[in-house]
């Protein structure tokens, strides 16, 4: 086994339905989570819609996969960066997003927030720090 842990960033830029990008990204994340890398996700532009609370796809033929984001904590994917400006440009705040948490095994299973609200400039630094960035 390789001991080199790399930083993987999955950049989500599109609305959840209409194209397959959001779901594909999520599947790749879940598959990749098996490889014990340092994984984080970022949501910018229309990508922030992927995390909206109360999604309803009953009028479309698409599966509502929004609840799958809640499983990310089980997969040890605990860093979800949301760009503040992208939310603001769409009239949204953190309160419009699903509460996403993970349980810290090393801290008596304390529930911790996965979503990290960051500014565009802060996110740029996070992206700079990655070894690999996948853009969806």
């Amino acid at each position, binding site marked *: 086994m390789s001991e080199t842990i790399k930083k993987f960033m999955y950049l989500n830029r599109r609305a959840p339905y209409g194209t397959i990008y959001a779901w594909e990204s999520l599947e790749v994340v879940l598959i990749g989570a098996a490889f014990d890398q340092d994984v984080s996700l970022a949501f910018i532009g229309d990508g922030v819609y992927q995390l909206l609370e109360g999604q309803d796809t009953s009028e479309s033929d698409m599966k*509502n*996969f929004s609840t799958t984001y809640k499983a990310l904590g089980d997969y040890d994917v605990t860093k979800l960066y949301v760009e503040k400006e992208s939310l603001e440009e769409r009239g949204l705040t953190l309160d419009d997003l699903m509460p996403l948490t993970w349980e810290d095994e090393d801290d008596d299973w304390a529930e911790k927030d996965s979503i990290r609200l960051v500014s565009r400039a802060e996110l740029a630094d996070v992206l700079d720090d990655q070894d690999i960035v996948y853009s969806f």
Partner: protein
Amino acid sequence: MAIEANGKVFETDEEGYLVTLADWEPVVAEEMAKEDDLELTDEHWDIINFLREYYEEYQIAPAVRVLTKAVGKKLGKEKGNSKYLYGLFPYGPGKQACRFAGLPKPTGCI
């Protein structure tokens, strides 16, 4: 391919997974187990039901690692290990148990 039980036909894909999740009935699991030479006990059903609840909640079949951890938390530490789960489902708790539960093959399972 298909499974016949209770006078009904349940369509399965080329790997034996149920095509339509909503079609599932307990008898599907029993028939699939019979084909795998397994008799389902309460311990098997605990896992099968757990998987169905997990899918209901998250819309995915969990990876084995995630399943193991979650079972340990919900059903007790002595059950949350791969030895116990492989003991119940020799073809792999991910693949075999998910198939019995009528779920798709776990994401990331090859």
